[in-house]
């Protein structure tokens, strides 16, 4: 009698807790679902072939902004990857030193700095054409620098964690083969950690891909294609010119009084989300294909 009562009570408790957890999941999914449906219902209408291909001149399309976003992200990765890798390696190889703990603290502080402050900072020392500054003007270069500062703490800590997750015995196996430590780190550990490092990189890229605040003060906007052909790109001149990007289009068009531009802002926002999702899913697919496991785990 007692036994059955207890069993019934236990099953009842079990159901209540399960129900609460299911409810929590649904509550979490509601904002996501609402966001996606709003985005799709408002944005899908603007999507068309010409919207993807034409320049932002007179609201014709967002082609130059798509390309611009990719170029800024690429340039930001060029700055952030070597630095982040170096930092991550340093933090794992000399992790117990004072300088290492100080760097770790600084990286954490850096990741807490609002993006707009980073934008203003780069504006002051790179963009501005007066005072103590590089006098570069609004440019891809300045935007990439701003985004790379935001990416750096994310990517460096991801690299550190990825390297830390490689068992110590792998390190020792490399040393045991008579390889110098630099070879073990650069050719074995970095490679062994590369799926997680790649995941970290693309998380960092996805994080900054949607940032408008730092670009506001650094890239400005442009109605033209970022470059006029390969020759122009080779001179690196486009790097020093203002450039268009999807977050800036979303920002500018949303605040515009013209309803047709408001509609285009939804389209650009949808593209931005698709872009970030594509980056994320293709990393997953690549690491799964290349290393035969879920990302980070071989």
């Amino acid at each position, binding site marked *: 009698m007692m036994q059955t009562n207890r069993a019934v009570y236990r099953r009842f408790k079990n159901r209540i807790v399960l129900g609460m957890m299911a409810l929590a999941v649904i509550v979490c999914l509601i904002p996501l679902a609402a966001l996606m449906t709003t985005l799709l219902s408002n944005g899908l209408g603007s999507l068309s072939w010409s919207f993807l291909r034409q320049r932002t001149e007179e609201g014709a399309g967002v082609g130059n902004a798509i390309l611009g976003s990719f170029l800024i992200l690429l340039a930001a990765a060029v700055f952030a990857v070597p630095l982040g890798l170096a930092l991550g390696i340093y933090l794992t190889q000399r992790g*117990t030193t004072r300088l290492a703990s100080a760097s770790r603290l600084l990286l954490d502080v850096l990741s807490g700095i609002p993006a707009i402050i980073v934008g203003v900072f780069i504006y002051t020392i790179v963009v501005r054409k007066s005072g103590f500054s590089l006098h570069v003007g609004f440019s891809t270069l300045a935007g990439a620098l701003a985004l790379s500062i935001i990416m750096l703490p994310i990517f460096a800590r991801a690299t550190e964690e990825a390297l830390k997750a490689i068992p110590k015995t*792998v390190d020792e196996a490399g040393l045991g083969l008579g390889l110098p430590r630099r070879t073990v780190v650069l050719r074995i550990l970095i490679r062994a950690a590369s799926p997680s490092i790649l995941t970290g990189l693309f998380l960092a890229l996805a994080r900054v891909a949607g940032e408008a605040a730092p670009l506001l003060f650094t890239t400005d906007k442009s109605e033209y294609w970022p470059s006029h052909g390969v020759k122009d790109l080779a001179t690196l001149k486009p790097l020093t010119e203002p450039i268009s990007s999807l977050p800036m289009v979303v920002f500018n068009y949303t605040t515009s009084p013209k309803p047709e531009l408001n509609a285009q802002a939804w389209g650009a926002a949808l593209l931005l989300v698709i872009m970030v999702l594509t980056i994320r899913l293709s990393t997953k697919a690549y690491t799964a294909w290349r290393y035969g496991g879920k990302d980070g785990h*071989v």
Partner: protein
Amino acid sequence: MKSPLVEEEEPGTVPDVRPVPPKPTMMAMSKPLPVPAQRTAAPVEQAPARIAVRNLEAGYGNHKVLKSINMDVPPRSVTAIMGPSGCGKSTFIRCINRLHEETHGAWSRGEVILDGQDLFHPSIDPVDMRRKIGMVFQRPNPFPTFTIYENVAAGLRLNGFRRGAKLDERVEKSLRRAALWDEVKDRLHTAGTGLSGGQQQRLCIARAIAVEPEILLADEPASALDPVATERIEELLLNLKQDYTILLVTHNIQQAARVADRTAFFLLGDLIEYGPTNDLFTKPKDSRTDAFISGRFG
């Protein structure tokens, strides 16, 4: 730098032409051994040892793990280092390829003499030296994201050995030597981590012998494996001793009895007893050895 790797000869036949020492060299050990200095000096002169350990002490920070070890290891044989957990047996063999010093806070003093040369001498580069002394670890540790082929080739490739038919040959030879070739020849370019535990450990042995070392250190190589895989590893060690001087750490008494020509018994950082395996197991001279092999502790 390259020369030791590019040589084409069989590993064992290269430098070592000295005769195998008469078997019962250490008979001088008949009395109990409280005074380390007395145990060693005499027998060394009579029988050239491949590795001679003199007054080796090692530890971490204030903690002394090894207390003045003296030991001679004859060439082309399996020497077992046996003892309960925490007796310093792993630390001991990690001193021989100087992997011990790579741990934070680790120290060691004394001499480890290989072919008449002190490996602790300041003029010795541990990186070059480790190429002569291969190591197999407690847990199989193939390089993550490396294929089977790349794992075996790693020690050669990362030391500047070119890709090509010669490398293929070396990889095949090493895998055959490690009794793994037939199982993996059709999947050389799949992940090394995809193999079973026992296969992974044989892969690690193949990786270690691919750089053609002269000494092979094995730190409880079968402790993470099932009995069948353990038996294969033991067979392999017996096979490899024709060419290599093998030091085998084990906490498994039966394993020492099955595989080793000579056995050393370590307890709390002291070398308690060392001699031909048969003698040590049938008529141990120290009561503690007797207690350990008859299973009364450890």
